[in-house]
């Protein structure tokens, strides 16, 4: 137990000198090093093309990095499940859900996601949910089926191909849908939903996969202002209530200031700014961001007030 607590002193996610050059020669990321604690809400700001999307996608290795390492703390190397910065909390939670859970079998190690492949990588990814600007839900399937895709890595392939998810998984899906207030749409076809509802289904999918980290790639960029706040509130809710670490690319400075706990600025693939929001007055942060953007911060960088 002592050893675990010592490891717990490390941070959940650690980028070490990560660089990415695309095959066509475009340099997307240069020497990014950053550490993120469990439970943080990190907003990544920067101009489009600065490398924000690439940065998010290297974290779950949908895009591999050319150089550097991305380390995750306290991963059980038998199952590749993440136990977070304070494993005792997660162990307690698991014991409550399953009395037979045996924490002595755990082998918590620091895992470098850039070095693992195949099945191990897929198991690792199931800890990391992702939502997108275009929602990327399956429009021709029901809301329930969409959320159940979050369970594919927990089931044998033949079951997932036939769509035969066990009842326990369905219960997980209902719970996730309830969390984002959309349970009444369970049996609706996803294409019948509005943009905001689709994004909530995508959040539910991440909850169903039991994600410890949520990557949000411009989650509200295709939503109107009112729905924008709705969706941001749900992201904040799972961040606060479930302790899910959120890393989100955002367009709007006011959303970052309002919902995030930390702002990271990216410019030309380099990390140029990193601040805890509570440590500095908002007005000064906005001034700082002019350097990140390389231009004055204007009306377009704000969503505006919630009506």
């Amino acid at each position: 137990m002592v050893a675990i607590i010592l490891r717990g002193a490390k941070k959940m996610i650690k980028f070490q000198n990560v660089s990415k050059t695309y095959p066509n020669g475009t340099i997307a990321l240069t020497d990014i090093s950053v550490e993120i604690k469990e439970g943080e809400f990190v907003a990544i700001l920067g101009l489009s093309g600065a490398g924000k999307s690439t940065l998010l996608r290297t974290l779950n290795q949908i895009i591999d990095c050319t150089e550097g390492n991305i380390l995750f703390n306290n991963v059980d190397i038998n199952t590749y499940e993440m136990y977070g910065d304070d494993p005792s909390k997660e162990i307690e939670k698991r014991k409550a859900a399953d009395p037979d859970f045996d924490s002595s079998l755990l082998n918590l190690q620091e895992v470098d996601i850039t070095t693992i492949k195949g099945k191990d990588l897929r198991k690792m990814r199931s800890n990391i949910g992702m939502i997108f600007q275009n929602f990327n839900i399956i429009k021709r399937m029901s809301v329930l089926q969409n959320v159940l895709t979050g369970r594919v890595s927990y089931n044998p392939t033949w079951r997932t191909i036939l769509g035969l998810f066990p009842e326990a998984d369905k219960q997980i899906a209902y719970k996730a849908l309830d969390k984002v207030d959309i349970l009444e749409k369970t049996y609706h076809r996803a294409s019948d939903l509005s943009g905001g509802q689709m994004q909530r289904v995508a959040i539910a999918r991440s909850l169903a996969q039991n994600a410890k980290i949520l990557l949000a790639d411009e989650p509200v960029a295709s939503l109107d202002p009112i729905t924008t706040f709705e969706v941001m509130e749900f992201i904040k809710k799972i961040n606060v209530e479930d302790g899910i670490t959120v890393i989100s690319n955002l367009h709007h400075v006011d959303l970052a200031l309002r919902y995030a706990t930390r702002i990271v600025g990216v410019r030309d693939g380099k990390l140029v700014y990193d601040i805890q929001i509570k440590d500095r007055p908002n007005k000064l942060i906005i001034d700082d961001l002019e350097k990140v953007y390389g231009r004055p911060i204007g009306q377009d960088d704000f969503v505006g007030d919630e009506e």
Partner: protein
Amino acid sequence: MISKFEHNLPKKPNKTKFYSNVIIFALIIISSAWFAGFNIITLFQNFFRFGFRLIGQIFFPPDWGYFDNAIPPLLETIQMAIVGSFIGAIFAFPAAVLAANNFIHIKWLNKTVRVLLNITRTLPALVLASIFVGLFGSGSFPGVIALSIFSFGLISKMTYESIESIDFGQVEALMSVGGNKWNILRYSILPQVLPQFISYTLYAFEVNVRAAAVLGYVGAGGIGQKYKIFLQLRRFDNVGTIIIISFVAVLIIDTISSSIRRRLV
């Protein structure tokens, strides 16, 4: 007032290229007709000399008494088309998946499958049918095999192009939940291409009905066998009946099938 703008107008686009393309195109058509021995005067002469009489023999009147006998071979033709497109479609989907370069990133495999698909598409159904009649003897079985191969080539080609144009975001979503290739195929690719795939299969079915009607000419079953027999016997009135019911059948099938396809995509 309007004329004031004229000197500010950008220069008119050069049309030389357009005209030269038209001339080249016309030359190709005229020379092809010349070499193929096409002669418009012969066309009209022969039409007036023999055509009217032939049409008269076929349609005025067709032998309606033959109607009942023409139905079974017509049904056989349609059955051949159904089975052929079905078998073709079953094999076409996996082939399309292997040929699509955004799902399987093994270049030599994509290319090899594509070459095979192209070969199957260059062989006309009639040629395939004659080969299989030689192999298996006459009857509808070689016809079905010929139609299966023909549909396979058609459906797989169009399907792999659809797979290559899917929205990749949904693939990213399945990757991010920890899905494997089978999960991606099932949840990202299949839902996106299934309507198109069904539509292509129906289209292959439409083409097959028309192709199957002549396959009998080389002994591969269906209504085409009757064409051949009655043309040889010079029973043009019976040929007339066959033409009319085939036409009606094709018309009905095309109408139904294309209205389903419109609703699918």
